[in-house]
């Protein structure tokens, strides 16, 4: 099957000499909901910039649904919709015109362009605002406007660069729901985000990029299976002065009504609950201490950085 996105040995060196991408390889299958994660400056936005032609690549190959961007970028672009990180529409244009104009840029005939504009403004809850200047919208509305604009030509591949940054929780959840629907209808979605909870709840596959290299490319499930331990926080009904020794588990008191316990991959939570019960501890609620993906993300990036530092040290030694 032809990949929705295929990237081979992608390099990017900016005019300043900064090496942003050091040989990226990436495959995203049609229909996937794919997360591209990485710390700030890792190369996520550069990768997206190359895919949608805002950044000139130094070398490497990029294909969109089998169309090489070097051979027919115009055809490849028809399949792509982009929602950038920063607002990039004309702030003086009316909301309707922002979307309608983009439809025109993709060659949609007038009547169809207006129908699609109406359809996506309604879907994203902006139809009532259609005659307002876009600068008067709230931050969340502006993000939704960029999503409507990216969808107006109904692309097969939707790329979202941190689409929910600065959006309140309620709107974020409704955007998640909308993106799930778009993906269910067959649109391939690539998402970069800093909210790892977002990647965990939306995406099936993930690539982690750091310092211009892909350090992990797998399914979210497989990634989470790599977690060796999780820390759970338990809230108790009665106050505790000390935490009794629970055999096989490491735990510590947080305050008089809560404590945390490390549960390793091979250990059972049932056994833990049985031990707590034996010690007369009544648990009223439990939760993960941190986002699981976040823990893994930090450990992967840290491990990659340590390897890089070692490589750099060995390079220096060999030069000496």
């Amino acid at each position, binding site marked *: 099957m032809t990949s929705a996105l295929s990237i081979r040995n992608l390099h990017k060196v900016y005019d300043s000499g900064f090496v942003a991408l050091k040989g990226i390889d990436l495959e995203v299958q049609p229909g996937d909901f794919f997360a591209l994660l990485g710390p700030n400056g890792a190369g996520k936005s550069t990768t997206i910039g190359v895919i949608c032609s805002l950044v000139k690549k130094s070398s490497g190959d990029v294909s969109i649904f089998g169309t090489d961007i070097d051979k027919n970028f115009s055809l490849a672009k028809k399949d792509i919709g982009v929602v950038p990180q920063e607002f990039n529409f004309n*702030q003086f244009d009316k909301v309707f015109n922002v979307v309608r104009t983009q439809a025109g840029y993709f*060659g949609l005939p007038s009547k169809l362009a207006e129908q699609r504009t109406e359809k996506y403004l309604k879907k994203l809850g902006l139809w009532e605002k259609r005659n307002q200047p876009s600068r008067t919208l709230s931050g969340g509305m502006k993000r939704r406007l960029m999503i409507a604009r990216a969808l107006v030509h109904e692309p097969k591949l939707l790329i979202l660069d941190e689409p929910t940054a600065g959006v309140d929780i309620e709107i974020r959840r409704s955007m998640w729901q909308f993106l799930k629907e778009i993906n269910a209808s067959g649109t391939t979605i690539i998402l970069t985000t800093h909210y790892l909870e977002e990647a965990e709840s939306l995406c099936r596959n993930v690539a982690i990029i750091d310092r211009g290299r892909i350090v992990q490319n797998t399914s979210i499930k497989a990634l989470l299976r790599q977690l060796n331990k999780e820390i759970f926080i338990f809230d108790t009904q009665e106050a505790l002065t000390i935490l009794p020794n629970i055999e096989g588990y490491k735990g510590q008191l947080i305050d008089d009504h809560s404590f945390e316990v490390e549960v390793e991959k091979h250990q059972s939570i049932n056994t833990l609950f049985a031990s707590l019960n034996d010690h007369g501890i009544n648990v009223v609620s439990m939760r993960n201490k941190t986002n699981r993906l976040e823990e893994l993300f930090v450990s992967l990036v840290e491990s990659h950085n340590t390897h890089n530092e070692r490589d750099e040290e060995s390079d220096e030694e060999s030069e000496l």
Partner: protein
Amino acid sequence: MNPQEQWVAFTTIVVKEVRRFTRIWLQTLLPPAITIVLYFVIFGTLIGPRIGKMSGFSYIEFVVPGLIMMSVITNSYSNVVSSFFGTKFQRSVEELLVSPVPNYIILLGYVVGGVARGLMIGLIVTLLSLFFTDLQVSHVPVTVGIVFLTAVLFALAGFINAVFANSFDDISIIPTFVLTPLTYLGGVFYSIDMLPEFWQGVSLVNPILYMVNTFRYGLLGVTDINVAWAFAMVTGFCVLLFVFSLYLLDHGKKLRS
């Protein structure tokens, strides 16, 4: 994109551009009209009668073609430079760059937008001039041809300025320090016959002189220069600037990192 889609994209850009300058008509259409009326009052009614005849015409008759041309030049240039730099500044140019619109369509769209404003102002100024003098058109094809080519040329120049500009200061430097002096010294207000021989030679290096004089020839039938040569030169400049603008777009100069 097939030709039909390209046509849709082209008209979208043109409509967007026309909508922009008509929406802000208080900044784009009204000020040049007021300025030109002041020129007509001062040079036509107050000072003009004291100057006497120039090239066989009253001063107001002589100066009207130059002022129409000056309005066309200034407005076709400033429309494209401010609009395209505005899209760069707001990053809305990315809407175009991520779309499949070919670069020559982007360029044509902006140029036609600039030409539309230049010609609209030219028409407004022409209508206003009728309150001060009777206009005659001696050579219609020459008049229409040169005003159109001049608008195209300065729209292209505005586009190039916008591509290279990094700040709003950069889009006012060329109009202030290059365009305005060349226009004022381009035979708008006087015939170069009045100048000493040396300055006549210097004036002949100024391309705006050829445009103004060709337009004046179209209206009044008098000129200081060779009209055929003027058409050839303006057309040549148009081709040169179009090719250069397209080169800038194709290479993403100051647009793609």
